[in-house]
């Protein structure tokens, strides 16, 4: 299981991008879900599986929550959740 349960170490990970920072229309590859186990599990069931591509789509008026395209569906997440999903930039073909 790739989900890290790390609620006690805020700001420990500085490298890389989180989904919250992924600009509109850009695509990235999911790296790590820095969320409690059960939440990470549900996110993976919804398609947020490490190694899979994710793209930032629309956001609600005001910018939060945002909709992400992942594994054939569109899922809305609040910023606080998106900020704990780490991604790396996708190798473009």
């Amino acid at each position, binding site marked *: *299981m*790739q989900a890290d349960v790390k609620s006690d170490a805020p700001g420990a990970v500085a490298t890389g991008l989180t989904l919250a920072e992924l600009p509109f229309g850009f695509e990235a590859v999911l790296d790590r879900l820095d*969320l409690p186990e*059960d*939440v990470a*599990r*549900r*996110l*993976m*069931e*919804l*398609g947020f*599986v*490490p*190694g*899979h591509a994710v793209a930032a*789509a*629309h*956001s*609600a*008026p*005001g910018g*939060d*929550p945002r*909709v992400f*395209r992942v*594994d*054939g*569906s*569109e*899922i*809305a*997440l*609040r910023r*606080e*959740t998106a900020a704990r999903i780490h991604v790396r930039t996708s190798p473009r073909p």
Partner: protein
Amino acid sequence: MSDQGCCSPATTIAPEPRPPGKLARAHSIAIVGPPNSGKSTLFNQLTGLRQKVGNYPGVTVEQRVGKMRLAHNKEIDLIDLPGVYSLEPRSEDEQVTRDVLLGEMKDVPRPDGVILILDSTNLGRHLLLAAPVLSLGLPTLVVLNMADSLRERGGQVDTTALARQLGTPVALVSAAKSEGLEPVMEFLTGQFGVPAPVELPVINDIPKCREWATHIGSRAAYRAPSPPLWTRRLDKLFLHPVAGPVIFAMVVIAVFQVIFTGAVPLMDGVEWMVNRSGEWVAGVLPESPVRDLLVEGVWGGVGAVIVFLPQILLLFLFIGILEDSGYMARAALIADRTMSKAGLQGKSFIPLLSAYACAVSAIMATRTIENRRDRIATILIAPFMTCSARLPVYTLIIAAFIPERPLLGHFLGTRTAAMMGLYLLGFLAAVATARVLKSSVLKTERTPFLLEMPPYRRPTLRSLALRLYDRAKIFVRRAGTVILATAIILWLLAHLPLVDGGAPPIEGSVAGTIGRAVEPVIEPLGFNWKIGIGLITSLAAREVIVGTLGTIYGIESGDETSVGLQQALHKDITIGGAVALLVFFAFAMQCMSTVAIVRRETGGWKWPLLQFAYMGTLAYTGAFLANLIVTAIVS
């Protein structure tokens, strides 16, 4: 759109011919699938009007069972299970799905077979659920739904190969269009056995399961369809930073305007029928107390309420269209910021939305909230949302006291604006209460908001019709039981004790005495003793007050029509009292069913009593202030 781009849509191939298995005398088949896979559409297609909605024993998750008659006089029960992403439950309704499938649900026999329904346009992810379901070892038919979308968007799948990979038959259907359902019927008549053993991944390891799903998909020549273009175009508009909220507001206004003004001709029609039939009854029966009871009590009381049936059905028609089309998820997205400011998580939004229909079903829907404190907070605020039972009360009083004038041309009139103001008032009370609760007794860490945005779809007539039919049934049943009973009891109380062998003047009757006893308490709100009787009877259910007032004023004047009722009200209470009455109904918890369900859901009397007292206090104070302010302004 080409049929050649896709394999033939209706093939089902049993992996290997095997002798008819246990299914030969199947009694019940469960339909299971992820949310948004079209589970209920298939269920509705197969069972139509022959469905029964109840509860699972011990829990309040809705249990939908439908009967299907098959060839050779065979009958089968179809069970529509709550949607799940996996068989690892995280909420009560997911637990129900798991327990029923494993045969661990008390008093519900283990189903004899399973229809696993998946969205064919999103097969990669949806196949995740196939692993745990197939490992149950029950005879299973995998139904790939949305065949029409798959075809139109250039996707394809080889059902024969997929069936071989999964070890169980596969059918490609479009439930909404009744396309390719023959294999489903064949399965139900019991042509298939248990799944052939195939290698399944370790169910706990989601990345592994997902790999397995991709592998199976590629073996079945699955080509994912191109993205739903129309959905993206519409989202550009509906989620536009400026246009989005404007459209949202316009949709809400339009819904209210149509419910309020568009329903009038239909309501007039029902009223005409009520009046004609009442006159007919009065004409054929000889003059007697029984005739008076029927005309004043039953026709006056029940008739006054039944008139609102078209309006309530229109409301549900709109809710149905918004839900089935996929717009509701966007509305939830737009509203999420407000919800989060109230300290509520996104999941509370759906139950709160359904509270606009009925708090009872909304409180049942809170079972999807995993966190108990969040759940109780949602339960406590749900009755503030303007449920459909308030609609008749609001309509009656607004029509009696507020003249119709255009505010925004024909698009928005004063009465609609008043109605929307009341909906807003209830919503604000809910949000404020949630804020207080969430920052004090029910404080929790915030739980994440995950909401799937389904592609937009055209709602099917069949599913809309079924919703309306369900609602009409519930409404008429209530009119025929609770409202009828209170109407008769009230009529009797209004005619007793007999004075000189005849009915007393209504002020002197038992009902009048009770009303006058409470009058001092409600006088500061601008209410008189007749409203007092209405407030007491409406403790059973809010709309009962309309029937009660219909009966009381009907006895007084001998005219039981709702126009007569409006005029009588207008003469009898001040505008201050009328506004106070609206505010009272916006806040008070006058619904025995809600009290009962809150007790059951929270496991004791503590929360429902607290809620009743809190809402009652708020209603009294709010109505008092409303009367004071309005009276001051008018004079």
